[in-house]
């Protein structure tokens, strides 16, 4: 019993540690006071002025654009690549997996810098360079999530489908796809998470006028953060919470069925 209470307390402390900053931001977003350390009453004015703050809205839209474009493209390229890699002989497979691990294991700063060196040499920094950089570190997450699922699928089921007269595409859609779909989906989620949270790589590859939330906040943070940021982060957290809860609910419902 003591043990149980102890572990509950420990759990609570860790969760407090993880969620306290978020709580602070949420509280501040409703704080009707300019200084950050005093409570000046409840207000929604930061939410109203958020909508009029073009810098923030632009950075938010830019973040969404980059995150979604990069994650979806990465999911497509990554899934195809995973299928290709899966079909390779062991040597090719090893080489591909080795290369796939590079952006994952390399330091962010090195990845960012190396891509910057590339872009500076051949093109102008801008939206597309950030997108390419994000794709580069998103694809490996997709591949590594899809490959294990592919390893679990039976090769024979696919061949059986072909034997029964299915075209490769149809056989893929009916046989392979249902098996790897969870992997593809979690790869996609992983890519979204990583893209949303990235700072270092964006920082080194972004061009003039391109700002994601991360890079914008980085500059804002040094200039004195605007309370609208708290409002935005509260909204973001709310969206993330709802999104993940819905997904969790779905998968748990499925598990019961």
């Amino acid at each position, binding site marked *: 019993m003591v043990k149980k209470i102890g572990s509950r307390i420990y759990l609570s402390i860790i969760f407090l540690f993880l969620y306290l900053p978020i709580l602070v931001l949420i509280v501040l977003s409703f704080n009707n006071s300019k200084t*950050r350390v005093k409570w000046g009453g409840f207000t929604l004015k930061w939410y109203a002025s958020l909508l009029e703050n073009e810098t923030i809205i632009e950075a938010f839209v830019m973040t969404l654009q980059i995150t*979604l474009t990069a994650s979806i493209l990465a999911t497509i390229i990554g899934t195809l690549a995973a299928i290709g890699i899966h079909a390779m002989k062991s040597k090719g497979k090893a080489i591909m997996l080795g290369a796939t691990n590079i952006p994952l294991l390399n330091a962010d700063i090195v990845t960012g810098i190396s891509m910057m060196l590339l872009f*500076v040499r051949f093109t102008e920094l801008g939206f597309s360079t950030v997108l390419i950089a994000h794709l580069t570190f998103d694809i490996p997450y997709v591949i590594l999530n899809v490959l294990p699922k592919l390893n679990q699928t039976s090769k024979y089921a696919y061949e059986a489908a072909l034997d029964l007269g299915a075209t490769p595409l149809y056989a893929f859609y009916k046989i392979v796809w249902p098996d790897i779909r969870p992997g593809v989906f979690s790869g996609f989620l992983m890519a979204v998470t990583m893209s949303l949270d990235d700072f270092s790589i964006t920082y080194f590859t972004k061009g*003039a*006028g391109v700002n994601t939330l991360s890079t914008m906040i980085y500059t804002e*943070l040094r*200039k*004195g953060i605007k309370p609208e940021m708290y409002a935005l982060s509260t909204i973001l957290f709310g969206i993330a919470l709802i999104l993940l809860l819905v997904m969790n609910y779905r998968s748990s419902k499925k598990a019961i069925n």
Partner: protein
Amino acid sequence: MKKHILCIAALLLGCLTFTGCSDSSVEEENTLTILNYGKYFDPDALQIFEEETGITIKYEEYESPEEMYTKYKAGSIDYDLLCTSDYMIHKLIEEGEVLEMNYDNIPEYKNIDPDIIDSSASFDAEHKYTLPYFYGTVGILYDTNVVPESEVQTWDVLWDEKYTGNIVMPNSVRDCLLVPLKRLNYSINETNEKHLRKALDLLFEQKPLVYAYFVDETADEMIAGNAALAVVYSGEAAYAQDEGENLGYTVPEEGSNLWIDSWFIPKTCKNQEKAELFLNFLCREDIAAMNFDYVYYATPHTAVYNSLDEESKNNTTIFPTQETIDNCEVYVSLDREETALYNKLWKELKSY
């Protein structure tokens, strides 16, 4: 069900990228890419310019002149207009990176205080390249509740152990080194390594007392009461005094730095006339006033200055007295080796 989510996401994505693309294809022709210090231009004024001229502005900010130099030199973005500090402009002029300005295209240039234009001679000797934007000093911003005025008349206070953990120093090489250099009665443009080493030793001695090395955060940290003493630009000090309570600003008697931030047109400019159109725009009285209100640094714009009330005119934090200006030096640029030396000293200070 997950298919639906993906469909919706894909749709959303389609819309987003579509709008994104359509924007960028238009602006390619009619844009100005501008690089400026952080918090150094009223965004509303930028919008007015865009509305009046139909020119789209790609606006980017930086923190220190060194960062600006890197961004510019990296060459991956072709800037049309730049605003930075005296010594960095000097350096770029010497490197042949700056285009001569056609002042005929900037009729509003007449508003700029000739005294300040004269002071610019240290980096733009023939007045061919630059347009002064703001100027000011470097001094001590202090919490009047904690630090008595008498103590901040000299840089020595920054070595007072009473204020351990309450001192904010600038996070850039030259602004940080100027403090011990002046305390030692050297020039802020010192290049003698022995003298510089002495200054560095003072900074090492001071390091345990320092709360942080900041640039843009300084004002906010002081307003929030996180520190009692900070070395800041006069403009930052004025902003802090406006927002916070009990904050004072002095330029210590050993002297300090007078800085003049100016606009110039770099070699990478694609359309000089448009850049000059923008410069003329920012010299317009209404726009200069907007920017003065927003930035709150000393403006060289005589019309704006004259329209101010007496209290503002006499605010020595913003507008330094002639006496103070005479006591201050303007930075000059360093050559490659000198820069390397400064950087090396800086890294030494920062590495534990």
